[in-house]
């Protein structure tokens, strides 16, 4: 590589990166290290007495049945997988439809994309309002037309279904944008050649389009799992508050609840550290994959 031209200045580059570095250190590294530190201590929420307990907070998470950490873990995985599967399958299907040479396709695109702007919390409110047992129109219909009693604050299956639907509804737009961009980059020649050779639409999709989309699909899978695990706190907080029982208490919600409501700082910090390790793991997987860029 040819040596690139670079400015020579002694202090200027440091002044330029300074604001970013200050913010990164004060609001990222310092709190992250404090979180790690705190996870080794047991803190009295009222007195301020702090005892070093080593790994006990972590051990407690996995052994103390009162913590139900394993249960929360299972709920998170199930929730993230359901949301990722539902919203990705629907988005891929819709993107395939919108990618056909049809009239009004830019209108359809706009109509698919706007829900991205809806806050996750608002998505929760929208679905809560439809399914509220007292005022919800969908709940009313289910009860009076189909005889289904909708009580998501009592029925854990319904609670799980409701938060899954709300979270997926919001995520469809995001997946749609990426799938559509991916589909548009599939060369038309390939598809036409296959059509001339007699491959029907289903076959063309599974044998040509889908394999060519695999980098997009993989990228979206990771992003959707991250969304399901970490960014759906507002929906859980607003719609079910983790209940009934602990049936929708995903890990991020539990960190918040144990820390802010139950004031168990050590336990909450230990959970944060585990979440950090999970995110780092997902990011590493993603980067390794992007580096290789393999498909078909």
């Amino acid at each position, binding site marked *: 590589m040819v040596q*690139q*031209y*670079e*400015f*020579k*200045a002694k202090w*200027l*580059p440091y002044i*330029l*990166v300074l604001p*970013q570095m200050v*913010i*990164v250190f*004060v*609001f*990222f590294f*310092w709190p992250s290290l*404090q*979180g790690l530190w705190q996870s080794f201590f047991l803190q009295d929420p009222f007195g301020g007495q702090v005892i070093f307990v080593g790994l006990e907070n972590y051990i407690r998470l996995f052994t103390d049945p009162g913590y139900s950490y394993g249960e929360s873990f299972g709920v998170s995985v199930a929730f993230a997988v359901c949301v990722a599967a539902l919203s990705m399958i629907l988005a891929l299907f*819709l993107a395939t439809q919108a990618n056909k040479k049809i009239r009004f396709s830019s209108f*359809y695109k*706009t*109509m*698919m*994309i*706007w829900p*991205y*702007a*809806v*806050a996750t*919390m*608002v998505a929760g*409110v*929208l679905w809560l*309002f439809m399914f509220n047992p007292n*005022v919800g*129109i969908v709940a009313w*219909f289910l009860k009076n037309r189909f005889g289904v009693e909708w009580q998501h604050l009592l029925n854990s299956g319904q609670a799980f279904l409701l938060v899954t639907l709300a979270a997926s*509804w919001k995520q469809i737009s*995001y997946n749609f944008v*990426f799938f559509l961009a991916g589909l548009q980059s599939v060369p038309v020649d390939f598809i036409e050649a296959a*059509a001339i050779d007699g491959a029907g639409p289903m076959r063309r999709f599974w044998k040509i389009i889908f394999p060519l989309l695999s980098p997009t699909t993989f990228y979206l899978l990771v*992003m959707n799992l*991250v969304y399901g695990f*970490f960014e759906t*706190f*507002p929906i859980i*907080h*607003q719609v079910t508050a983790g209940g009934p029982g602990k049936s929708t208490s995903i890990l*991020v919600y539990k*960190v*918040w609840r144990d*820390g*802010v409501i139950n004031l168990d700082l050590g336990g*909450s910090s230990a959970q*944060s550290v585990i979440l*950090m390790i999970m*995110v*780092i793991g997902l*990011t590493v997987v993603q980067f390794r994959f992007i580096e290789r860029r393999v498909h078909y």
Partner: protein
Amino acid sequence: MTEHNRLRRLTPHLYLWIAIVILLFPIILVFVASTHTSADILAAPMPMKPGPHLVENYTRAILEGNKNLGASALTMMKNSLIMALGIAIGKIVVSLLAAYAIVFFKFPLRNFCFWAIFVTLMLPVEVRIMPTYKVISDLGLLNSYAGLILPMIVSATAVFLFRQFFMQIPREIAEASQIDGATPMQFFRSILLPMTRTPIAAMFVIQFIYGWNQYLWPLLITTKQEYYTILIGINRMLSGADVQIEWQIVMATTLLAMIPPALIVVVMQKQFIAGMTDTEK
């Protein structure tokens, strides 16, 4: 076009319309509810046609807000706007400067700075809320705009986007500006910034929406009504028993909360899609 069958040509429209209806239905419902009285909504099933109380409900929501909430939608929208603009502009300014230094200058700590920023890509705020809360509380920034904005400016995505863009710019331009006697800051202001307009616009759309839709962080650090963002206000309005909730005001406020980000996405659709697919986050 590979298929010429008439029916085949209509089916995509049908599927897309079904999807549009499913996506729009909750919003229509919210709008209808915001034009009725609380009693009408509570009398199940709620009416499906808009009622006569639109002006009355929105006026109350905007100027007074829900009973016992102590914050009007106007105040809360102002707070959300300050937070969203602060996060979007703050991120862009800080990231532009950092990316400029990392790409165009050679200095001993360059790699260190790059990696320090890179690592932040990995951790969303959600996983370090308690310690970040403590830092903000130690700095005395609870219930303040600075407290709402500053921790959210940590993000590697903007730095990466600008870095990638800067690396594609031919260096001869920088060299020529030096020979012509421009200082590096003059080059930055009058040559580099105008070239970067498109990525800046894309970043602004993405980050404005991100900022407007923040929930967990404001939930933690705003306890005073005058700092409630609109999403926190909605949450507080819904925290009572079902029959006591003033649904019409809540729904009017919910609709108001959706308008600014939705408007930005629709109006700046091109920049928005570019921003989303370029940053890959």
